[in-house]
């Protein structure tokens, strides 16, 4: 029985397609519409890595799952790679929902303590401008605005503890030039 599935793989922000065709014990892989090559992936090192063979070339990739949405932590020869994989249909559905680069919402990504807020509601900010400082692990972490625009809301106060996912500041992006 031949099964064929298509995936979208994101490697350090660059999008690739991969077609996996499996027939019995044999698996073939076609990357970015190129030629199909026999391929296998064998979990090794106690599940901490995968020994990948594509067209006879063997590599060991260290991999662990970062989230439940296809995000992976990958390391190749000590170099970290941002990797994610998604079924092609799901990738298309997500793309249809829109979304693009640069968000106006600053969200805490680690738990910490707000120690400085550099903006006020109504204030205009440039992309890259410091907005808020969160201290964690004895270090100060300055968060900058991802967009140019106007501060709509400051959701936290100095001295407040925040957790990952907490919204800190909302900035209304200025219309593109």
């Amino acid at each position, binding site marked *: 029985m031949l099964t064929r599935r298509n995936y979208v793989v994101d490697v350090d922000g660059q999008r690739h397609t991969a077609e996996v065709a499996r027939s019995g014990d044999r698996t073939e*892989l076609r990357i970015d519409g190129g030629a199909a090559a026999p391929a296998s992936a064998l979990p090794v090192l106690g599940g901490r890595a995968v020994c990948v063979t594509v067209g006879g070339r063997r590599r060991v990739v260290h*991999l662990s799952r970062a989230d439940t949405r296809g995000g992976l932590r990958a390391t190749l020869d000590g170099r970290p790679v941002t990797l994610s994989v998604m079924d092609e249909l799901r990738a298309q559905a997500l793309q249809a929902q829109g979304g693009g680069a640069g968000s106006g919402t600053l969200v805490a990504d680690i738990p910490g303590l707000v120690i400085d807020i550099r903006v006020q509601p109504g204030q205009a900010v440039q992309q890259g401008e410091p907005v808020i400082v969160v201290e964690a*692990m*004895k*270090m100060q972490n300055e968060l900058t605005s991802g967009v140019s625009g106007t501060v709509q809301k400051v959701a936290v106060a100095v001295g407040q503890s925040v957790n990952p996912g907490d919204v800190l500041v909302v900035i209304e992006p200025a219309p593109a030039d």
Partner: protein
Amino acid sequence: MSKKPDTHPFDTVLVANRGEIAVRIIQGLREMGIGTVAVYSEPDRTALHALVADEAVFIGPAPASESYLVMQKLIDAAKQAGAGAIHPGYGFLSENAGFCRAVEAAGLVFIGPTAASMEVMGDKLASRRKMMQSGVPVVPGTEDAVRDPAVAITCAEKIGYPVLLKASAGGGGKGMRIVRSAADMASALRQTMGEAGQSFGNDAIFVEKYIENPKHIEVQVLGDGKGGAIHLFERECSVQRRHQKVIEESPSPSLTPELRARICEAAVQTARAVDYRGAGTVEFILAPGGAFYFLEMNTRLQVEHPITELVTGIDLVHAQVRIARGEGIGIRQEDLSQRGWALEFRVCAEDPSRNFAPSIGRIEAMSPPLGPGVRLDTGVYEGFEVPIHYDPLLAKLIVWGEDRPRAIARAQRALRDFTLQGPTHNLPFHLWALDQPAFRDGTYTTHFVEKCFDHTAWLPALTDLDREALIAAAALLENERRAPAGAGAGADAHGDNWRRAARRAMTGHK
């Protein structure tokens, strides 16, 4: 209590610290046949240091101010567990003279220097004065605190701009400001005094020549507390980010044998000047021309002590314990030599691409590098959730090689062999550093990272073959997860069935 007046026997030691240094001290104590007591806060319930000790005493909630910094809790824990001595490690209370006094007042041995040494060395102005009297070179500048901008300007004109305004009670890169002209002096002095008063409760400020492109050289010393002292050669710690060391090496590539002899002798003089007891480190600034100046003395074991251990063959924790027991230094200067080269890499949960901001999370995968010339001192393990409350140092990778090029090559091998996934960390940064010409030729200064590191373009490019392997790994594993090749087993909706797949694959069940 002891039979001989000068010896302080103890058979159990409480380690008033956490993380890798607590683990390393426990290892050292165990090798001497000494019982070990750890202390742990709430989030450190399952921390490695609490697991490897013979006993572990709970000392309170997460904030260090309610646990690791509470002197009475530590002393009570030591008494409760029958410990006769306390080892403070580094950080926390290790350089707190009050803690040293409280420990001794409780009838326990403090494994470290006297409170008096700590007090002199904890105050930059006092230690500068002490060193000037002892003939140890200090950076040109004022001998006393300066409150009047006019006095500061006079001094600056004598020694030449730029100068540094420095808080006497500061440290770790805090409480300093560069001044490049007389016009800036008044406001700079006002601001620095304000900050110092607020941060350290002491607004004493002094003026010092600002050394451009300096190197950070430090010398390990051991003192017997009676004026006897030896040195264990130097370490160079010029690779810093956020004013904190991140890679250290020993020997320093910047010293000639003659300069090494002089700087080490200055360190011994420093230790003798305060009748130093135990292990300490004298830090110097090395100017490009070869002039060196006393910076400060750290009155404790340093994070980077292992490189000295590898090069000299001396175990510093063992030496600390021997001295604390009143057995003296037990090592003669003439028996010491430097063999080979050692490098230490601080493995921190931080993101080099985001200005080294701390990162947290569970250690999802960890396989230490092994084989020749590799040492790992770790405070974490696979499965451990790194607490946010303490510093981001997870482990230290230390390598030794026959010479500097071989130590670097071995470090590259070991850094690549080190599997660590979970929090973002700086192992890739270390690989970056080892590739830089300024690191390889040893000319790097404390400005190395700020000058050379571009956080947007520091990772090596991926080759086409790299991409192929990554795409294949991701696609094939996702395919296996969605439709396992094995009969029966359904896809695991919650994700991670790779470990199980690994088990199947490795037991031969396809």
